[in-house]
């Protein structure tokens, strides 16, 4: 397999000047944290020079098509190379969706394999940490991991850390019972703020108004 990969890269590394991804296997992950769940959208894009190598891993019977079984098998292989932990506990990722592009698109360096993964996260404290480690095809991988803004208002994103290659990604976040943006200790402030705002509006309407940014018609 190594020889095959090396040969493919050697042949194709005298690259087409216009081609976009060549000898790397882009693995871009978008992580989304919900209150009791972690989701990951993984987009795998083999470059032109490594596409045959990747196709060979997927299309194991080499019939030029990716069957359902082959697709599931490859998804499982990717999952084996991923480790997801929350608060130090390893979670079991499930494949919720998998899509493969036509092989012709993969050969052109634009075929994107889309894996949607999800795992239930165990109950924990307020401050939590997700760690995602990806070692899939690390010799040719170009990793990218980012966190989507949470749709769950009870989740607040904290710090993100990565190693240089982004194969290791750490995300701190907080889970609350209230929508993010209002710290739980300050929830009592809401009615006070409302009363203050009403008072300010009242005072504002009572005060004399000077015309700003317009001719002072009354001065004539």
């Amino acid at each position, binding site marked *: 397999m190594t020889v095959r990969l090396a040969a493919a890269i050697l*042949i194709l590394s005298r690259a*087409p000047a216009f081609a976009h991804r060549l000898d790397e296997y882009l693995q*871009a992950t978008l992580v989304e944290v919900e209150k009791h769940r972690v989701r990951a959208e993984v987009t795998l894009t083999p470059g*032109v020079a490594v596409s*045959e190598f990747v196709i060979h891993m997927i299309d194991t019977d080499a019939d030029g098509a990716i069957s359902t079984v082959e697709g599931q098998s490859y998804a499982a292989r990717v999952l084996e190379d991923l480790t997801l932990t929350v608060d130090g506990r390893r979670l079991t990722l499930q494949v919720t969706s998998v899509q493969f592009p036509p092989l012709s698109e993969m050969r052109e360096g634009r075929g994107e394999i889309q894996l949607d993964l999800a795992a239930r996260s165990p109950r924990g404290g307020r401050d939590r940490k997700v760690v995602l480690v990806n070692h899939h095809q690390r010799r040719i991988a170009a990793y990218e991991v980012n966190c989507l803004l949470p749709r769950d208002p009870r989740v607040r994103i904290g710090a993100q850390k990565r*190693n240089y*290659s982004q194969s290791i990604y750490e995300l701190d976040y907080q889970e609350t019972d209230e929508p993010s943006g209002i710290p739980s200790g300050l929830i009592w402030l809401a009615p006070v703020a409302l009363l203050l705002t009403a008072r300010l509006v009242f005072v504002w309407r009572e005060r004399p*108004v000077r015309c700003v940014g317009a001719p002072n018609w009354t001065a004539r």
Partner: protein
Amino acid sequence: MNTPLCFWASTLMLFLLSSANAQTATSRIVSAANAFLSTLDEKQRLSVLFAFDDEEQRVRWSNFPISIVPRAGLPFKDMTPAQHSAAMNLLAAALSKRGLDKVQQIMEADEVLKTNEANGRGGGGPPPGRGDGFAGRKGDGPPEGGPPPGRGLGGNRGGRGPGGGLLFGKDLYYFSFLGKPSEKTIWTLQFGGHHLAVNVTIDGDRGILTPTLTGAQPALYTSNGKTVRPLGGESDKALAVLNALDEGQRKQAILNYRVPDLVLGPGKDGKTIQPEGLRASNMTGKQRDMLLEVISEWAGIVHESAAAARMTQLRADISDTWFAWSGAATAEPGRNITAYYRIQGPHLVIEYSPQQMGGDPGLHVHTMYRDPTNDYGRKPAAK
């Protein structure tokens, strides 16, 4: 006149003045669009007009050459001189002078790439001489040494048409419309090809440029004895911002990891990521102004009144806008940076991504410009 009346009178005046300007821009674009459409025959007209809710056409844009990601619409190559002229008038109405210049330089770069490929010189990327049907030779035969196992040439013309013709060049940029040009109802002008996807949505007096992709290869070339860098402003101004930061700010702005590609490129509509880097609230006023100058390289592509409205919005957001940098913090004078950077705010995502494919990454650049709240003008207009 009492003061409240005076306030409302001045507000009304400003509103009417700005509306008049915006209406002028919108009516000028609509008029140019209709003039272009009137030059087309029925078949051509059908090929450029799509329903506004045609989601397939809406997302049919890419950084790839048209041979790899075919576009729909009408390309320059299929236009008569009169149609070509009307199309350019439409672009000139929809874009600012600097925007039109940038777009033309990107197209010109593709023309340079076409010439270089025909001469076997490549586009500033890896060494020439490759022959697997991608580039470098006029023939369409198998590569030296043959294709890799299992690879069929038929599935990968790599920039060549069925007859072996090169599929680069400034004639291969396509026009299409989502919806019919109108001063009242929403519609979108799409224009693009290799390294270019301009989506200008007109919604009454609003002009929205997001999402728009710009790129260039080569991102530095000479034309009529002049050095041209289509994305030179994006490179130089961002580096100037980085250089204006103190050590503590740079520590926040510079990411300690490699970003290999656009995060929110084609196909990533509707996604918003957590911002990173240095928040502009931690910049000085001068640094924030410099950051706005970088942003204006994208925001200023659209026609002037829409660009002004957009810059007003982005200026108001500036304190909540982030600047992140990954890669070399220097560049040779007159050359592009080789680093990735991202500018992200409540209504903005900008990414600048040099492509790592051998050679100088600064010679092959992709950029993305988005408004995560209003790509394609999907935010309802304030009534």
